[in-house]
């Protein structure tokens, strides 16, 4: 990480990889990762639902693990590989979790969906989605106000192959 000056602010040069593309950015130290993704890189699929790290809407994968991107500064992402919802499908084919959300009607307004999908991907890949209870506990950090979670749990269980 190198440091450059812009006006009276310290800007830090940060290199991070998002959805397979490397970006070199000059960031203010206070910029949260979620705003770096949304405003610097235009990746608005990651949404902001609260200001207390309670809702999980901004969940992304950092080094493969789910992270609420409002709990991390952009400068802390130096060197990490980040996956956002825009990077989850491959060659136009939905990821199995995205597909399962569609099949099971696991989204309504869609605002929590990107974070919920990425939290689910991480849960499944870490081997944590073993049964309904584990899925419910594993998604505890992500709020949804539309679905009552019923269909989300079904979708994740289906994608995880546990139903």
């Amino acid at each position, binding site marked *: 990480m190198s440091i450059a000056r812009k006006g009276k602010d310290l800007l830090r040069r940060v290199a991070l990889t998002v959805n397979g593309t490397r970006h070199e950015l000059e960031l*203010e130290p*206070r910029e949260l990762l979620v705003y770096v993704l*949304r405003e610097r890189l235009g*990746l*608005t*699929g*990651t*949404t*902001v*639902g*609260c*200001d*207390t790290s*309670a*809702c999980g*809407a901004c969940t992304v994968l950092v080094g493969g693990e789910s992270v609420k991107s409002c709990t991390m500064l952009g400068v802390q992402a130096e060197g990490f590989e980040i996956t*956002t*919802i*825009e990077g*989850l*499908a491959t060659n136009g084919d*939905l990821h199995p979790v*995205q597909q399962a*959300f*569609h*099949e099971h*009607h696991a*989204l*309504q*307004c*869609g*605002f*929590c*969906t*990107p974070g919920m*999908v990425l939290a689910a991907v991480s849960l499944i890949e870490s081997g944590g989605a073993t049964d*309904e209870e584990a*899925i*419910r*506990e594993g*998604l*505890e*950090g*992500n*709020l*949804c*106000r*539309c*679905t*009552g*979670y*019923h*269909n*989300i*749990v*079904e979708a994740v269980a289906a994608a995880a192959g546990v139903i």
Partner: protein
Amino acid sequence: MAVIETRETFVGTSVKRREDASFLTGRATFIDNLTLPGTVYMAVVRCPYPHARIASVNLDAARAAEGVVAAFSGADLAEDWKGSLPCAWAVTEDIKMPPHFPLAVEEARHQGDGVAVVIAESRALAKDAAELVEVDYEALDATADVERALEDGAPLVHADLGTNECYVWKLETDGVQAALDAADVVVTRRYVQPRLIPNAMEPRGVLAQVGPTGEATIWSSTQVPHILRFALQIVLGIPEAKIRVIAPDVGGGFGSKLDVYAEEALVIALAKRLGRPVKWTEERSENYVATIHGRDTVHELTFAATKDGKITVVKSEAKCAMGAYLQLVTPGIPLLGAWIYNGPYDIPNYSVTFTGVFTHTTPTDAYRGAGRPEATYVLERTMDALAAELGIDPIELRRRNFITEYPAELASGLTIDSGDYHASLDRLLELLDLDSIRSEQTARREGGDTKLLGVGFSTYNEMCGLAPSRILGAIRYAVGGWDSATIRVQPLGSVQVVTGTSPHGQGHETSWSQIVGDQLGVALADIEVLHGDTAVSQLGMDTYGSRSLAVGGVALVHASAKIVDKARQIVSHQLEVSADDLEFADGTFRVKGSPEREMTIQAAAFQAHSAHNLPDGMEPGLEATATYDPPNFSWPGGAHAAVVEVDTETGDTRLVRYVAVDDVGAAVNPMIVEGQVHGGITQGIAAALWEEAVYDEDANLLTTTMTTYLVPTAAELPSFETDLTETRSPTNPLGVKGVGETGTIASAPAVINAVVDALSHLGVTDMQMPATPERVWRAIQEVKA
């Protein structure tokens, strides 16, 4: 000879949602994802006190801060407002309707009341500078309590009114007192229903641009683009014809975006002043004080009954919090439940009184169910209380009082067109297996288990499909309840459907295409549904009150019929047969008896546009608009049951099972219906067990985040067991009734009845919502003492 294919209808099948793709891939158009060249960002300085005189506002430091474009106090912008933020429902002739301008000038009346704005080149710079605004507040006494607010000497929200009483509204039939006097038994219970914060996952947001000749475009996370358009003329004086409102993807509403908010007027006024697009994105902590709340009522509910359980009187008196100002429909929210205080029961004598009360709190307004959860809660809780009083099983008591004949004329004056409450309850009991729950309950009680089981019921109905315009007029609502659809068959056969409804999660694009696909006999892939932009959809009354399908969906049927009629004239002309000799099925007109002579509706559309050979006098094109005003409300109903496990040592209550059987009429898309039920019951369960906006004695909001106001997570909830019974509504051609609010209306009383049931053998007879561990534990200690 051509083979006439018959196919399944789209309506009634769980077509997967066409809306999903953009959300699943991160390509949604939520407001905060949108920016225009030159956009500047607004931050609102909000009063931290529940009630304060604004002595002065000093903007010098903010104006001098980095990146700041402008800053204004309430006084600076006062001349921009041609009218108050409107309240559309003057429920009585003498209702007190104090003005409500986008920024407070002399006095702030609740925490979060806006007092100044700062506009800067970025969101962060606007927020930085907002912290430099110096407001000299003189704190004043305040109260958030509806009962205290009515006492003599209570701090007044609007001192010039001389009272906090906003209105008293009453609906009473003759003979209530006589029936009370004649009753074998009279049961009266008091209920406090907590204030709820809607918590749509997307906070509000607005972006506005004003052109050089004053034409304004606003993108808003609103449920009501059409209502917002005319409200903005009232506030800003810009002719409606020059205002375009766009509701792009909207991340949930639940009533909280059924409103006209200060920030919507502010961004337009500022965009006009500054000549640049202005954007504002609400933060969640702002949302908790600046976006409407729901509920917050104190009821006294009385039943009179014969000794064999026939209820003869329902009488309700309620104090209902308005908050500090009247938002769009604030005073009318209790009235949305006013006609269903009999629920699904035949009760001949009826008395409902509401007292609207100003308190120093965020305004209340529609939150999922809006008036009907309040009514159903007190009714279904008192049903159990009456059952206990009479020694009759609560299920049997409900059955003895069910309405069974339709149309059912209610004492309250409305007419239920259809229903079968016994059928829903029968199906519920099949799914529930009550006998084994009761034996487990008994075994645990007898075995001294500290985790007790309880089962609670709620049988309900609601009036939705808002609403017949004449009735709305009669109850003093300012606008109509119709909705509109325009269908346009393009020259090459694709179909544009323009709806006046404004979905924000309900899946109208999918369901509406199913309806039109059946009506016109075209493939779903040929249909595009457009909504949420007043430049595209000129006529509409938007989405709230479980109205979209029962009103807007029916408008689709009528518009389709006009399309088919015109196409029939074209085909008749071209095939040189009488229109009466044409049959229309599966998108094709065929000559009766000569089915090889045929023309598809899409071919007719090409002819309509080429206009080479149309009947004399026919206008080219194949487009039709229908506006549908429903003749009656729609009347969903059903039966719900909750099974809870209560830990007597900690008071912790866990929902073990939830079974819901609803009659929503015909289900256009059963998958979407089920999703609405899931979401609805979750919000009622949450009100029963977790959610409560808590204010202290001085009207400071204590539950200011999603971690102190307990929005439930997946971990607290079970999977749900749901089913449908179906009685088609005879009121509309689709047979539909609406489903958006049923779950929320039915579920809270079922859960609380279950909690009380779990503890009833100990002597517990009541439990206030939400049944927090502390409340449950205290209730157990009280009966022990």
